[in-house]
């Protein structure tokens, strides 16, 4: 029974894709949209039903499994389309389908006038299906299939308005940068198969735990470290970490609901999911964990600095997403797996909320995205305003909004960690929190308060968005307010999510050693410090941008702002060190192909032609010539008989 429901969870979105694809001529747009929404809502409800049963199970990791069909069979390899719903994938499935459903509903309104309405929903459903395959797949190949599937959907949706070359380029960039990460993932997969002889995820992680217990794999084993690092390379690509984060800001070329769903709430957290799923590897490889923590902290820091100066409302949020993903990796790196997953969940709430709010603003202003040309929208967009406001509080991490709890859990574990590295990345995270609060409220001030700086074009259709768009905003706002209750600080002894996920991370924590429980007053003190920092940042921005930007309040000039303005020149560095050499190599290869390879081929052809021309002289069509040669042959034969 549960197995069948589990199969349905993943089959429904795909079935919906098929139906919409083949009936797209007959289906009315409204019906197609409703089907698409239903194809996300039903899996959500099914996940709730199936997931409820797995919470309280045996000492083994509780899970429901199902096998849809056999897939790859050959030699020692046996991979099936097998699904596995355990607490970790359940959490992700609920986020994907839950947030996904809200965003689908929102899209009904947002994409209402778009000629590609039906195409949009086909892609969105395909994305949901792929994401579920990624999360629910019980084997590495299926995970990889989903991984590539969401990458494809991301590409399709970034370039959704492909008539504009820039959008198509952005899609391409995302695809290519992701390939780099995918290579790492693929190599990791091959190494895992070589090491463990199986691709079943549960078998691999159990095998590693057992191997460690028996002494086969010591702490810091080189092979395990390499696998963990390769996995992390894959995660870096998908989750937009340094240095592969460049694609995410460009991905904002897609429709705003896509940015909310794929490039904020769900797909980009696939890297977190993978690292969390293989947490045992990272626990056994302190070097890899340190790399994860450092990369995460640096990404968080660098992206936040860039976000400080962005003008485009979506770009600010995009860099903020990079930054928050950095937080999550920081958490994973310091061993705060549960906290990282918690942050994934709360981030999904408030980042989806912020993106959808931004989309609502953009929608109202007839596709104006420059925050410098907004301002004073508060009375015009009341619902959008207050939900966005809530989102800002949650993102900045102000008590008691959701972001506060999750961010604080990560920071707490980092700052109170042992050694010098963890506190160091913790401090970096704290500085990032300050900047986050600053840019968040800067954005809020620029968009909703101060004098109106609207174009005539943007002003023409200024209106509050329809209910299909505002209702999801309200729901997400409520989640952003109350989401922190899922996992309160340790001293509160109320940690639904943490208890739920505990069996998943138990092996990893058993290897690395459970984080020490700190005294209540230490934790509270830390919270107060971070809260003070955040509120300080928010207050600073609040005052500074009270009257809008620009000539009233000139932006600081100089070296650092210049660097930030140009996003640390990362794209330019890529252009010089990656794109340039690639182009050069391609040019060389093209030259080689055109003149050497083609030269050889054409030369051969010309040689044949020449030989043919010579031999053709014999074939002159005159019987006498043939007869002459013929009889000459006869003479030769007769003479040889003599």
């Amino acid at each position, binding site marked *: 029974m549960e197995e069948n429901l589990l199969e349905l969870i993943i089959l429904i979105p795909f079935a919906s894709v098929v139906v919409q694809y083949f009936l797209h001529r007959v289906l009315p747009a409204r019906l197609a949209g409703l089907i698409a929404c239903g194809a996300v809502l039903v899996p959500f409800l099914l996940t709730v039903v199936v997931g409820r049963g797995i919470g309280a199970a045996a000492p083994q990791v509780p899970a429901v499994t199902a096998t849809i069909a056999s897939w790859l069979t050959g030699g020692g390899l046996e991979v099936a389309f097998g699904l596995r719903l355990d607490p970790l994938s359940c959490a992700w499935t609920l986020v994907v389908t839950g947030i996904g459903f809200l965003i689908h509903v929102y899209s009904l309104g947002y994409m209402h006038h778009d000629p590609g309405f039906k195409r949009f929903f086909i892609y969105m459903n395909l994305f949901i299906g792929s994401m579920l395959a990624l999360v629910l797949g019980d084997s590495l190949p299926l995970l990889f299939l989903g991984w590539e599937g969401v990458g494809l959907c991301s590409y399709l949706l970034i370039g959704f308005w492909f008539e504009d070359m820039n959008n198509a380029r952005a899609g391409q960039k995302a695809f290519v940068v992701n390939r780099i990460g995918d290579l790492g993932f693929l190599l990791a997969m091959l190494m895992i198969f070589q090491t463990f002889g199986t691709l079943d995820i549960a078998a691999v992680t159990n095998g590693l735990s057992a191997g460690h217990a028996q002494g086969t794999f010591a702490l810091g084993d080189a092979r395990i470290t390499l696998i963990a690092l390769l996995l992390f390379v894959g995660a870096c690509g998908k989750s937009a970490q340094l240095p592969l984060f460049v694609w995410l800001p460009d991905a904002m070329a897609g429709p705003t609901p896509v940015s909310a769903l794929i490039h904020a709430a769900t797909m980009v957290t696939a890297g977190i999911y993978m690292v969390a799923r293989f947490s045992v590897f990272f626990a056994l490889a302190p070097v890899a964990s340190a790399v994860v923590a450092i990369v995460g902290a640096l990404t968080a820091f660098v992206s936040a600095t860039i976000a400080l100066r962005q003008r485009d409302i979506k770009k600010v949020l995009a860099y903020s997403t990079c930054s928050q993903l950095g937080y999550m990796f920081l958490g994973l790196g310091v061993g705060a797996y549960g906290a990282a997953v918690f942050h994934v969940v709360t981030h999904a709430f408030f980042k989806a909320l912020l993106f959808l709010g931004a989309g609502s603003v953009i929608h109202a202003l007839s596709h104006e995205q420059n925050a410098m040309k907004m301002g004073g929208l508060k009375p015009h967009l009341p619902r959008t305003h207050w939900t966005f406001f809530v989102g800002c509080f949650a993102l900045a991490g102000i008590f008691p909004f959701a972001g506060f709890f999750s961010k604080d859990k990560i920071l707490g574990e980092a700052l109170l960690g042992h050694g010098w590295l963890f506190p160091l990345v913790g401090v970096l995270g704290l500085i990032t929190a300050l900047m986050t609060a600053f840019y968040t409220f800067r954005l809020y001030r620029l968009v909703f308060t101060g004098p109106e700086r609207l174009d005539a074009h943007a002003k023409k259709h200024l209106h509050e968005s329809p209910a299909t768009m505002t209702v999801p905003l309200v729901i997400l706002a409520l989640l952003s307010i109350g989401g922190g209750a899922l996992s309160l600080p340790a001293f509160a002894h109320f940690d639904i999510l943490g208890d739920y996920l505990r069996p998943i991370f138990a092996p990893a924590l058993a290897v690395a050693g459970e984080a020490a429980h700190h005294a209540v007053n230490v934790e509270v003190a830390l919270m107060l410090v971070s809260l003070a920092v955040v509120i300080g940042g928010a207050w600073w921005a609040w005052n500074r941008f009270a009257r809008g930007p620009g000539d009233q309040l000139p932006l600081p000039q100089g070296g650092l702002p210049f660097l930030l303005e140009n996003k640390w020149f990362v794209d330019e560095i890529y252009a010089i060190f990656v794109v340039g050499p690639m182009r050069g190599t391609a040019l060389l290869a093209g030259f080689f192909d055109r003149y050497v390879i083609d030269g050889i081929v054409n030369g051969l052809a010309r040689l044949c032609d020449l030989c043919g021309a010579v031999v053709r002289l014999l074939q002159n069509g005159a019987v*006498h*010539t043939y*007869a*002459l040669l013929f*009889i*000459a042959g*006869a*003479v030769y034969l*007769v*003479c040889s*008989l*003599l």
Partner: protein
Amino acid sequence: MEVLERVAFYVMAVLAVISALLVVVNRNPVASAMSLVGAFLAVAGLYLTLNATFLSAIQVLVYAGAIMVLFLFVIMLLNLEREPFDLPGIGRIAGFGLSVALLFSLISLALGAVARPETSARGGSGAEIGDVFFSDYLFPFEMASLLLLVAMVGVIVVARRRKPEEEEEEQA
């Protein structure tokens, strides 16, 4: 008897060679054809000296009769004129030289042959050949008849005068 045989052989051989040469040399195709009759008849005579009487008769009937008549018909049908004389080119000289080479090499090959005693088990009469054909060589015999039939159909198809519309079709 012996002498008579020799005389007959030499007469026929000389006649055959001369007629053959005339075939090649004559520039009027009709005259060539008539010389060819002579050559065929001389070969028929040579068959006679070999005691192959039935074959000799067939040679006269088929070659000197049927085949020659065909040739003559065609020559008349095409209304050919005398071939104009032109100076020998390289191809001609090469052809002549090659033919001479062929002649000498063949003759030297022939002279190298060892004459076996002429102890034929059976003669060349019609009855004896019929025996062979209707026992051992029945299948080749039947195949020969089939071949002739096919040739007959083929000849009709190839040489038939096309109707104008068919001609157009073919050219298209």
